[in-house]
């Protein structure tokens, strides 16, 4: 039974392990996955704690539906206070780790303390062991996983590991599982490294009992048909996330040269079709792979064709790697993209963050804020592929002055570089933006400004806003399960109604993160994909728990408010340029220079943006400063937090 999966508390300082059941009332309130993690973080992280100190809890989890008979519920969620933002740290990855965690008897691991030497956790069929990892220290992400399998003599073990970037405490180091599944954002790998925790290895053969197996099976078939019939998922299954690259670049939504431009020249060189050809030649015609139980199979497989790393196998590159090693540094070679993607996977570092950091340094170099003295001879201009890949090495291994400084993350690096370096850092809450340009799309801009983990598209992006869906269709989607009769606009460059769309999406994404479902299986890129109305049956058939769509919405809203409470407690204020719900000045001051006619010349209007933020707070029941009112906390049953029930 999914509901009998347990929570384990592991203290690496004292080497104590405590295992507890998860009460049903907690499931009803916080569901599981990210929502429950938010509860655990708010309750276990001491206020103002050092993200790299022993008291910062690292919380690893699967969703409520993980390893049940529900499609694509393989997401692992990891939470802690972030060393990059000093606010909420949260990342999510696919692969096979979370289901294996559930089959080993657990849904949540809360890891505190710090080991005095490298260790890894061995979680298997209800038991947890802390084991020596000295022989693993220094290994990259995949070698670590295979070495653990060999040591324990079981090739079915799934591990969540850090590479050298996490060991070296690069503040945006990932947690990794499999070849390329990365819990990329907010530096959860750095937190693991600070605890001397190299890996969490799991293997389980325990039943996850299905409440109504035949109904669950039949419903899963319908669900999968709904998901795979969406055009967006069919094309994802052929090309992966880069499928959106060409279209986005055409209309002018690809962040280029550290946000100087909104469109990349020569983007065709790294089009997914170009990369697809390489993969077809090196791997074969069926070169896509998937996460556990998923029929979308959006991950491309490839071998690097040429260069220093010729012959190396890897997976991806995702859209973000095209941005990180293509548009942002303005490099236009598929080999560079594939090599860069391979390096970040092996070192275990956030491709999005490292690409943005290097592009930022490139602009500073071209402006003369950084010189050859700081770069130690590296000609760090845009379009220099060699310099780009060298900087990836330098950051991950903390080599050289600049490599070491950039490894600390944007805001500390800006302080060390000095002058007006901070003005060119395209960040929100200390975290760099996705490689998309939101100056022409106020809804998307509001999303990154207010996302709970810093600039990020997977917290509340109303991506279907770009499809110009007719208003009645928008109303059908955004008017349920909570009625909404305010304005809505099909026009992506408009400001009206966007605050509600972002609010609605925020709750959808929280709900899927609680359930463990992938975002390609909900209203993210496809308007016809499942949402609140579709989940009660899946939850009931698989777990026996009864939820109404509105109850799922309420739980999601509750969890989002908990994340907000955590951020406020750790110092978020509305207009703080480093910790607030705001954007880099370029959004407001520098218009888009390229793209479609309705995009050229667009920038975000400061006043209208502020109105959107006001409305967004209002939808939540927050005051003008973005603080939940006492009525809101009462409505959501959060008035007594922290309650320490788990």
């Amino acid at each position, binding site marked *: 039974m999914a509901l009998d999966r347990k929570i384990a508390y592991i203290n690496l300082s004292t080497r104590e392990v405590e295992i507890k059941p998860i009460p049903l009332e907690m499931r009803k309130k916080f569901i599981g996955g990210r929502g429950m993690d938010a509860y655990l973080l708010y309750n276990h992280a001491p206020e103002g704690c050092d993200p790299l100190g022993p008291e910062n809890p690292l919380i690893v989890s699967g969703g409520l539906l993980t390893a*049940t*008979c529900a499609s694509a519920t393989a997401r692992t969620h990891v939470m802690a206070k972030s060393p990059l933002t000093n606010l909420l740290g949260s990342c999510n990855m696919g692969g096979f780790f979370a289901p294996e965690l559930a089959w080993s008897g657990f849904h949540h691991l809360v890891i505190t303390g710090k080991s005095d030497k490298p260790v890894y956790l061995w979680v298997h069929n209800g038991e947890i062991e802390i084991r020596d990892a000295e022989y693993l220290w220094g290994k990259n992400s995949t070698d670590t996983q*295979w070495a653990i399998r060999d040591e324990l003599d079981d090739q079915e073990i799934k591990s969540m590991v850090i590479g050298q970037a996490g060991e070296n405490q690069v503040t945006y180091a990932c947690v990794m599982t499999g070849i390329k599944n990365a819990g990329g954002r907010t530096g959860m790998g750095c937190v693991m490294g600070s605890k001397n925790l190299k890996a969490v290895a799991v293997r389980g*053969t325990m039943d996850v009992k299905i409440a109504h*197996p035949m109904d669950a*099976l039949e419903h899963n078939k319908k669900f999968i048909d709904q998901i795979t019939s969406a055009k967006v998922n069919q094309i994802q299954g052929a090309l992966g996330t880069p499928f959106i690259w060409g279209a986005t670049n055409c209309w002018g939504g690809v962040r280029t040269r550290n946000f100087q431009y909104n469109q990349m020249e020569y983007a065709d060189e790294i089009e997914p079709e170009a990369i697809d050809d390489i993969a077809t030649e090196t791997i074969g015609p069926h070169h896509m*792979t998937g996460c*556990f139980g998923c029929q979308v199979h959006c991950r491309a497989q490839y071998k690097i064709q040429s260069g220093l790393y010729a012959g190396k*196998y890897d997976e991806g590159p995702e859209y973000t790697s095209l941005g990180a090693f293509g548009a942002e540094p303005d490099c236009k070679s598929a080999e560079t993209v594939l090599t860069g993607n391979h390096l970040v996977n092996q070192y275990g570092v956030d491709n999005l963050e490292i690409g943005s950091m290097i592009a930022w340094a490139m602009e500073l170099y071209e402006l003369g804020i950084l010189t050859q003295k700081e770069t130690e001879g590296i000609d760090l201009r845009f379009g220099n592929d060699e310099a780009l890949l060298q900087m990836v090495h330098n950051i991950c291994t903390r080599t050289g002055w600049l490599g070491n400084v950039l490894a600390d993350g944007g805001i500390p690096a800006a302080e060390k570089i000095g002058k007006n370096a901070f003005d060119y850092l395209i960040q929100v809450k200390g975290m760099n933006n996705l490689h998309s340009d939101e100056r022409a799309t106020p809804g998307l801009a509001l999303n990154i400004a207010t996302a709970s983990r810093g600039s990020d598209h997977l917290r509340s992006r109303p991506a279907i806003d770009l499809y110009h869906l007719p208003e009645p269709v928008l109303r059908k989607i955004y008017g349920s399960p909570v009625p909404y009769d305010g304005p809505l606009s099909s026009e992506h460059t408009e400001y009206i109604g966007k605050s509600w769309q972002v609010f609605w999406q925020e709750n959808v994404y929280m709900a899927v993160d609680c359930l463990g479902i992938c975002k390609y299986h909900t209203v993210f890129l496809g308007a016809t994909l499942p949402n609140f109305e579709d989940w009660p049956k899946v939850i009931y058939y698989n777990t026996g728990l009864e939820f109404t769509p509105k109850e799922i919405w309420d739980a999601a809203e509750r969890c989002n408010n908990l994340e907000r409470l955590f951020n406020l407690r750790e110092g978020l204020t509305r207009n703080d340029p480093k910790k607030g719900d705001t954007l880099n000045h370029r959004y407001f001051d520098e218009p888009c220079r390229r793209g479609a006619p309705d995009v050229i010349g667009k920038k975000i209007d400061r006043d209208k943006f502020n109105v959107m933020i006001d409305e967004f707070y209002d939808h939540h029941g927050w005051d003008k400063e973005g603080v939940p009112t006492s009525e809101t906390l009462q409505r959501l049953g959060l008035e007594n937090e922290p309650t320490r029930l788990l």
Partner: protein
Amino acid sequence: MEKFLTVDADKCTGCRLCEQVCSVMHEGVSNPAKSRIQVVKWEQEGVYIPVICKQCEDAPCMNVCPVRAISRDPDFGFMKVDQEVCIGCRSCVGICPFGAMGYNPTTRQVFKCDLCGGDPQCVRFCEVNAVEFVPVDRVSTQKKRRGAARQSAAERQATALG
């Protein structure tokens, strides 16, 4: 016409949905350890191979069973385990050359693929058709056609190079 479960490993994406639906169908639980089909993976090379029972004609599992619990189903032609008779000795698990026999620690008996009584769920759920359920005579004609296509492509390439 008797049908046969056949695997095209090239098409497999390694998602293991077949393992999930198989264990739910047969045991009411999600647990790959109790699935009749299992995907063997070499992640570092991106190679995934679904391993299934071949329903052998001269079946080692049947031959080795000391209590004759394993026999061929007259309607669908698969090898079946009579759970009333099985003593859980696991001789069949040890001898199967494909690793297709499983042991269920809950019931303390062995289990194997029964083609879901004619509608294999692994096939039904596999969107990429890496596992297919086809009439026995069609397997080899399909393979011939694919092999011939490859050979002809290679010959054309060789001519072009020549």
